[in-house]
């Protein structure tokens, strides 16, 4: 393997980490712009190298496009493992194939754009340098996750992104809401980590190795039941990381973090890690239909659930959070039924338009001085034209209107659902498309139209160029990104083929299914029309409907009270138990135990005081008794009772 291919992956992976370390060491001593420059340059460097690597790989013949690199060649003298606990050997290996490359390109590419955006957005933060260091750590751990060559290093990256998420959500650590949200995200992520660990344990028990090469090559040697279990536990991890039902409650709260964080981590990259996991482990799911169906059902349910909740939210970022959950539901649904190319394609387009939406929302929030409640907005179409046009592009993309990106990817998924004979799931997915159109345009109308500006602050103009440029670039990508898959030119499937050499050719997703696309477009238009009617044309109708369906509205606004349920089932018992332990068991149990030892020791001392009577004759008696005992021992035990006198 040539030197380029065997060293570049490591450079790509470690460049962001190196950047973070440099920021940590040098950053505080230089002007804060230095941290921004180092952060942005390291990610950009990774992106460029990734692009070069991708270009090289996709020139190669299809059956050679997937390969594993272990340790840089310079260390060839070292043994080929990172850990060797007989009989398990784990290497530090990276797997480079088209699947990983797609994710790497998005992570570094969109990541770089968001880094650039943060230069302007975080300008007022006191911890500016720390922010860039944390973002670099996130990019590093995310790359570790997608580039890993065995499940252990995947888990390392998995936990790493959870940590980065925790650090970044709670970035403004003076706000209790942010810190609580960060803790909640971490705890739920850890539940997912446990799922992956259990899957790893089963894998080790059956395959004896955690390396992708070994596990996937011997996949048929395990029973379907085993593979089902592995799939279920991996699904648990995916559910937690991708905020699917039922471990989704951390995602809306995660919006407490700064908007670039929401854009990068909780929209474009980290939350898609669950999707990546399922696609990466596709041999497992291909042979475990029950687990795969579970994945699809979870995805579908999450998509519908989140869409309905999104209809009743008033915080601009929360609407986007639920829409992320819903779109990820689409991706999970797609990979659950085996439409891996469609799911990946939707990931790519979603990264574009969701990051775009968050950036545009960020511009609005930034210019309104921190206002996020859409009831306090309105009429911004004239005051903030840039934000409006970019937000519009993103909305059209997510709703799936031709020719924007979402049209192609969403229709690809829906088409595959029917082609793979899942009509019920297709019906739900199409209904979700209707609801998605409704709530996204509701958001658009309430923010930019519906009469005059209702807010308190005067929006100030003049957004920084570093914020504007990435937004516009993403708007462009959201427009043209879908054109990777056109009738007769399925770039995605062609590109990914190299990662699916075991399955034969992937189904082409480029052909337009007029029925599916027609129905979907109609549904979307219906949703848009509904939002337009209720919000622009007939606000009194909306008010009447609102009061008539008030309980339903409350249910949706509180996200089906899932948070409340979790609070009473999990939080309250755990906290009560913890406080009880601290109040009772700790002082009396543990404290009592240690005090008890002290008491016992002094008690023995007290007891032994009784021996020191002070009477000489008593001491003498004790000595004589001792002498008698020693004599008896000596005669009977040592000499066995025979005489020791003179013979």
């Amino acid at each position: 393997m040539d030197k380029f291919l065997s060293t570049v992956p490591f450079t790509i992976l470690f460049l962001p980490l190196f950047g973070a370390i440099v920021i940590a060491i040098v950053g505080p001593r230089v002007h804060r712009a230095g941290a921004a420059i180092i952060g942005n340059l390291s990610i950009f460097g990774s992106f460029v190298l990734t692009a070069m690597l991708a270009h090289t790989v996709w020139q190669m013949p299809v059956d050679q496009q997937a390969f594993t690199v272990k340790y840089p060649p310079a260390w060839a003298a070292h043994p080929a493992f990172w850990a060797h606990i007989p009989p398990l050997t784990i290497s530090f290996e990276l797997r480079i194939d088209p699947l990983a490359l797609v994710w790497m390109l998005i992570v570094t590419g969109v990541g770089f754009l968001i880094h650039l955006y943060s230069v302007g957005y975080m300008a007022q933060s006191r911890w500016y340098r720390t922010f860039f260091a944390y973002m670099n750590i996130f990019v590093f751990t995310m790359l570790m996750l997608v580039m890993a060559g065995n499940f252990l290093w995947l888990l390392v990256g998995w936990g790493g992104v959870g940590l980065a998420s925790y650090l970044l959500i709670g970035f403004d650590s003076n706000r209790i809401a942010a810190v609580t949200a960060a803790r909640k995200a971490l705890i739920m992520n850890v539940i997912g980590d446990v799922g992956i660990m259990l899957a790893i344990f089963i894998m080790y028990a059956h395959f004896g190795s955690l390396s992708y090469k070994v596990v996937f090559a011997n996949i048929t040697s395990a029973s379907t039941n085993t593979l089902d279990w592995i799939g279920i536990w991996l699904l648990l991890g995916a559910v937690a990381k991708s905020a699917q039902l039922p471990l989704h409650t951390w995602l809306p709260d995660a919006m407490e973090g700064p908007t670039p964080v929401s854009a990068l981590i909780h929209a474009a990259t980290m939350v898609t890690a669950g999707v990546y996991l399922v696609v990466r482990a596709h041999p497992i799911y291909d042979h475990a239909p029950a687990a795969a169906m579970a994945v699809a059902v979870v995805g579908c349910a999450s998509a519908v659930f989140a869409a309905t909740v999104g209809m009743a939210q008033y915080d601009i970022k929360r609407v986007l959070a639920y829409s992320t959950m819903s779109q990820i539901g689409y991706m999970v649904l797609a990979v659950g039924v085996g439409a891996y190319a469609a799911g990946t394609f939707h990931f790519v387009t979603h990264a574009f338009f969701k990051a775009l939406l968050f950036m545009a929302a960020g511009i609005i929030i930034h210019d309104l001085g921190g206002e996020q409640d859409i009831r306090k907005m309105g009429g911004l179409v004239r005051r903030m034209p840039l934000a409006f046009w970019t937000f519009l592009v993103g909305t059209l993309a997510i709703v799936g209107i031709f020719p924007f990106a979402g049209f192609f990817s969403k229709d690809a998924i829906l088409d595959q659902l029917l082609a793979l004979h899942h009509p019920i799931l297709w019906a739900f997915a199409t209904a979700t498309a209707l609801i998605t159109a409704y709530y996204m345009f509701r958001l658009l109308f309430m923010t930019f139209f519906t009469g005059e500006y209702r807010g308190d602050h005067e929006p100030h103009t003049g957004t920084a160029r570093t914020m504007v440029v990435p937004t516009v670039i993403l708007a462009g990508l959201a427009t043209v990104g879908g054109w990777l898959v056109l009738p007769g030119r399925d770039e995605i499937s062609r590109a990914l083929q190299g990662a699916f050499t075991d399955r034969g050719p992937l189904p082409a997703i480029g052909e337009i299914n007029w029925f599916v696309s027609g129905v979907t477009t109609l549904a979307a238009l219906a949703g848009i029309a509904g939002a337009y009617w209720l919000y622009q044309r007939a606000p009194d109708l909306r008010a009447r409907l609102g009061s008539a369906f008030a309980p339903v509205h409350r249910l949706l606004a509180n996200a089906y009270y899932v948070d409340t349920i979790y609070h009473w089932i999990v939080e309250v018992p755990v906290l009560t138990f913890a406080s009880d332990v601290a109040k009772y068991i700790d002082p009396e149990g543990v404290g009592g135990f240690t005090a008890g030892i002290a008491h016992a020791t002094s008690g023995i001392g007290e007891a032994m005081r009784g021996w020191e009577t002070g009477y000489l004759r008593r001491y003498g008696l004790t000595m004589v008794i001792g002498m008698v005992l020693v004599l008896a021992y000596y005669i009977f035990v040592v000499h066995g009772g025979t005489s020791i006198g003179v013979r």
Partner: protein
Amino acid sequence: MIGLFWICTVVLIVTAIGVIGSKHPVHSVVALIVNFAALAVLFLTLNAEFLAMIQIIIYAGAILVLFLFVITLLTIGTQPIEVGPSRLSFQAVPSIVAGIAALALLAAGVRGARTAAPAAPPDFGFVGTFGLQLLTTHLFAFEVTGFVLLIAVLGVILMAARKEVRF
């Protein structure tokens, strides 16, 4: 010879009981003197003439005289005899029991064939032999014994020079 041995042994035991049993300390001292005499005869039967003489001279002649002096000095104006019941409970009976147990064990230990001692060279136990052994083979012990006596003298002088101590 055997008769002598047994007579001496009987005297030994009887006077020993007399030592510990007498109420008045002076009676005890007298019994002790007879005890030492019997012991000296026993030494003679063991071919230890020098030891027998030393026993009489030093033990009976010096140490017991010292005892008598102390009894005299101490009991002027005081009750020499123990009055009242003992303050220590569980002292008498356990003592006797322990003593009997010790005796039984020692008896068990020394039982066995009663063979006589082998023949000894004629000058065994003579003063000359003794002195030669003392000053050649066991010279170090002899010198250390001197130190012990020195220390005893020093100790007694220091204690005598001390002012009254109140207990």
